[in-house]
C-alpha cells in the first residue's frame, strides 16, 4: 500500500504541472484585469500602460507563467517605463510557496484564499454531514420499504428536488422562512450573512445563519444521493449472505447496518470521495444568495476581474485536493473490502 501511495503521489507531480500550465493559458484569455480596475468605466490609457508594465502583464505568456512558477527574483523589472529594467523582482514563485499578489487588492493570493477557506469548509462540511446522514436515512428507509407509499413519495420528492434549480430553492426558502415568516409574526430565519451585527459573531449566531444555506445545499443533493443509497442497498439486501444472515436469526438492525450497509458502501464512498475535493470550491450559488463569504464567491469575484494569482491558487488547491481525496478513497476501499489489494 505504501508503495502504491508513493507511486500515486509521484504521478501527481507532472499532472499538476500540466494542469497548471493549461489553466494559466486559459486564464490569460478570460479578460483584461486592467479593463476597469473595479470601476464602472474604463481605465485611463496612461494608467493602463503604466500598470501593464508594473504588473508584468506586458511580458509574453511563457515568461508570465515562469514568473508564476519559479518567481522573478532572478530578473529585473522596468517600473519607471524608461525602457531599462532596473528593479529586482520580489516574487518567489509557486514552487517556493509564493502564489503572488492579488491584482485586485494587492494582498498575497494565498492569504486571500485562506481567509475564505474556513468559512467554506464550515458550510460545506456541515452540509456534507447533513447530506450523508440524510441520504443514508432516506435511502435505507426507502430501500427497506420498496414500492410502499413512503418509498413512492420519497422518489417523487427526490425527482422534484433534483429538478429544481438551486437558486430557486435558495430564494424560495429565504422568502418563506425569512421575509414572509417575519411578516406573519412567526419565528424567522435570517436572510444573509454569518451573524447579526447587533449581536456579534457568536457560535449560535453562525449556526442560526447556516440553517438556510445548508438546507438549500442539502435539498438538491439529497435527491441524487438518496436514490444512490436506495439502489445499492436494494442490491445488497438481495444477496445470498443477507438471506443466510436472516435464516441464522441475526437481528434485523445488524443485518441492515453491518452486513448490508457496509457492503453497499463502496459505491457510496466513491461518490463521497468525488464530492469532497469540490467542497473546497464552495457552493457558488448558495454562497452568493445567502452572502456566505466562501470560496465559491471568491472564485467568481476574482475570475470576473481576471485576477490570475488568486484564481490559479484556488484551482491548484482544488486540483491537489482531487488527487489527495482519490488516494484516500482508494485507501478506504481497501479498509471496507479486505479483498482489494493495490500491489
Amino acid at each position, binding site marked *: 500500500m505504501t508503495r502504491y501511495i508513493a507511486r500515486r503521489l509521484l504521478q501527481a507531480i507532472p499532472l499538476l504541472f500540466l494542469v497548471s500550465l493549461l489553466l494559466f493559458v486559459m486564464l490569460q484569455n478570460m479578460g483584461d484585469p486592467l479593463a476597469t*480596475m473595479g470601476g464602472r468605466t474604463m481605465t485611463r490609457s496612461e494608467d493602463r500602460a503604466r500598470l501593464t508594465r508594473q504588473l508584468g502583464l506586458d511580458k509574453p505568456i511563457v515568461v508570465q507563467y515562469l514568473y508564476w512558477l519559479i518567481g522573478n527574483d532572478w530578473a529585473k523589472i522596468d517600473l519607471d517605463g524608461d525602457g531599462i529594467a532596473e528593479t529586482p523582482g520580489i516574487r518567489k514563485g509557486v514552487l517556493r510557496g509564493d502564489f503572488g499578489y492579488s491584482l485586485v487588492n494587492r494582498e498575497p493570493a494565498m492569504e486571500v484564499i485562506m481567509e*475564505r477557506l474556513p468559512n467554506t469548509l464550515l458550510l460545506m462540511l456541515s452540509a456534507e454531514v447533513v447530506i450523508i446522514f440524510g441520504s443514508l436515512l432516506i435511502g435505507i428507509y426507502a430501500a427497506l420499504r420498496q414500492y410502499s407509499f413512503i418509498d413512492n413519495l420519497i422518489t417523487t420528492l427526490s425527482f422534484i428536488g433534483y429538478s429544481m434549480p438551486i437558486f430557486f430553492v435558495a430564494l424560495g426558502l429565504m422568502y418563506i422562512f425569512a421575509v414572509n415568516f417575519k411578516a406573519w409574526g412567526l419565528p424567522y430565519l435570517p436572510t444573509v450573512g454569518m451573524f447579526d451585527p447587533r449581536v456579534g459573531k457568536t457560535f449560535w449566531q453562525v449556526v442560526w445563519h447556516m440553517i438556510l444555506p445548508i438546507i438549500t445545499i442539502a435539498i438538491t443533493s439529497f435527491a441524487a444521493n438518496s436514490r444512490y443509497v436506495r439502489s445499492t442497498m436494494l442490491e445488497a439486501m438481495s444477496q445470498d449472505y443477507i438471506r443466510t444472515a436472516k435464516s441464522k436469526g441475526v437481528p434485523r438492525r445488524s443485518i441492515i447496518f453491518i452486513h448490508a450497509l457496509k457492503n453497499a458502501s463502496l459505491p457510496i464512498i466513491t461518490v463521497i470521495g468525488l464530492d469532497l475535493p469540490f467542497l473546497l470550491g464552495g457552493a457558488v450559488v448558495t454562497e452568493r444568495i445567502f452572502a456566505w463569504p466562501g470560496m465559491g464567491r471568491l472564485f467568481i469575484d476574482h475570475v470576473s476581474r481576471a485576477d490570475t494569482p488568486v484564481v490559479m491558487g484556488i484551482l491548484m488547491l482544488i486540483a491537489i485536493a482531487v488527487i489527495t481525496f482519490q488516494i484516500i478513497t482508494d485507501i478506504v476501499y481497501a479498509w471496507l473490502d479486505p479483498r482489494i489489494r493495490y500491489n
Partner: protein
Amino acid sequence: MKRNWLYTATAILISAVFLLSACGPSGGGEKKVVTFIFTQEPETLNMHYTNMYFSSILQQLWNHWAWEYDENNAPYPVLVTEMPTQENGGISADGTVLTLSLRDDITWSDGEPITAEDFVFTWEMAIAPTNTVATAYPYSEAVSVEAPDPQTVVVTFAEPFAPWLYFFHGLLPKHILQPVFDAEGTIDNADWNNNPTVGSGPFVFSEWESGSFLRFVKNENYWGEPAKVDEIFVRIVPDDASQIAALTSGEGDIGIFIAYPDIPTLEDAGLNVIKVFSGYNEGWYLNLGEKGHPALQDVRVRLALAYGTDRFVISEDLLLGKTVPAATFWDGSPWADPDLKPYPYDPQKANDLLDEAGWIDSNGDGTRDKDGVELILRYVSSTREIRLDTMAVIQQQLAQVGIGVELYNYETDILFGSYGDGGPVATGNYDIAQWSDLPGAFPDPDTAYWLCEEIPSDESPQGVNWQYICDDDLQALFELQKTQMSFDDRVATFHQISTIMFEKVYWLGIWQDPDIWAVSSRLSDVKISGVTPFFNIAAWDIP
C-alpha cells in the same frame, strides 16, 4: 411496536430549526448600528489602488477629502478653510498655482495633526513608479506639491489645470505610511491599505472580514461634530434579490444600485427610494473608424438611428418612468446645455434620412443596402439585464426603418478590454456600443474619449477613443476647456462641445442613469451626494 425512526428524525430536525430560529435577536440592544448592504465588496480601502465605487464611497466614513460634495454635488471645504478661488488667491491669476489653506484643528484618529506634509506625501505616493496605484491622475499633472508651512499646500502645474477639484481624494497619513515606503520601497502591500486603523473621519475602521462585512465604529477623537450613531456595519450581499430581501426584512438599512423593477417592492416595505445623480448617462458610442460600418460615416444615417429609436418608450416601459432619455454626455450636471433636447422618435424622418443617404432596400429582404452592402449593424454591450432588454427592443424598432442589428453581449472585463488585449470595442469590432459612463474626473466634465491622440493603434494600444472619431473642432474645444479657470467660460465651451456632438451624433444618449438608493425609514437626516454619498454621515441618526 416497530419504531418509526424516520418520523422521529424528521420531527427532531424541524424542531431544531424552529428552536434555533427563536434564538435570533429580538430587535437589537442599546447600540445604534446602521447596516449598509453592498452588492460588491470594496477591493481595498486605499482608494489610490482601485477605481471601485464601493471603495470610494466609504471614504467619508473614515477619511475625509480636502473638500467634499453636498446633495447637490456642490463642493464645500472640509480639511481646508475655504474653497480656493482666483478671488481669494487660492488659484493664481494664470491658473498654474493652487494654494490650499488647511484648518488648524484637524487630526488623524490617533491624535496626530493633519498637516501639509500629508498632502505632499499623498502626491509623492500617487506618482511613485514603485507604487501600482490604479490611477496617477490628476497628481501626474502637477509639477510640484509643496508645504511651505504646516497649514499651507502649494500645487504647481505647468499650465492652467481646470480639473483641480479632483485633487486630494484619499489623503494618506504620512506618519503611518512613510516608514513602510522607506522600508519596502512601495506602499503596495502596506497593512494600512486594507486595515486603515488611522483615518480622519467621524468613524474609524474597526474590522474587515473578507467577503462578509466591514465594521466602522465611532471616532472618539474626531475633530468635527461627533457621529450620532455608534457603528456602521457594511454587509456584502452580492445577489440583487438577496439585497432586496435583506432590505425588506429590515436586516439592512441602506442599499444602492436598486434595479428599477424592485422600487415598488421596497416602497411597499416602507423604504425611501432616492435618486441621486452621480454623473452617469447611458448612451451609444458609434464606431466611425475603418472597421465600423461604412454607413456610419454619413451623419444622416447617424441621425436616422436617433430618430428611429424610441428612447422615450424605453424610459417609460423598461425603466418604469423613473428616468428620461439623455440628450448629452453631461446631462444632469451644470455643464449640460439645457437647450439641447433628446431627439424625438420619428420613424418617418428616419426613413427619409436613410433614403436621402442612398440606403434603400434594393433586394427586398427587409434591410436597406447600398452598393451591395447591407445596413446591418453590430450592437454590443455588457450582460446587464436592462441592457439585454433594451437591445432587444431597439433591434425591433430599427428593423421598422430597415436597419438590421446583430446583438453581442460581453462581460465587463471583456467589453472594456484594451486594444492590446483584443477588446471588441477598443479594436473597433462593433458599430454601436452601449454602456453608462461619466466624465473621468466627475464632477469635473473633462473626458478623453473623443481626443484624437486617444485613438488606439498598434503603437498606442491603450487609447480610449474607441469611437475612432477625430474632429478638429471638437479637439480644439476639449483642449481649450482644460485650461479655462473661469467656470462660466468653461460652461460655454462645454455647450459648444455638446452641440457638435449632438448635431453630428457622435454620442447618442439612451437614458439618464442616476443611482437608485433605498433608505430605511428608521434612519433620520440622511442626505446623499452623487460624488461623496455619505458626506453628512455624522448627522445620521436612529431616533
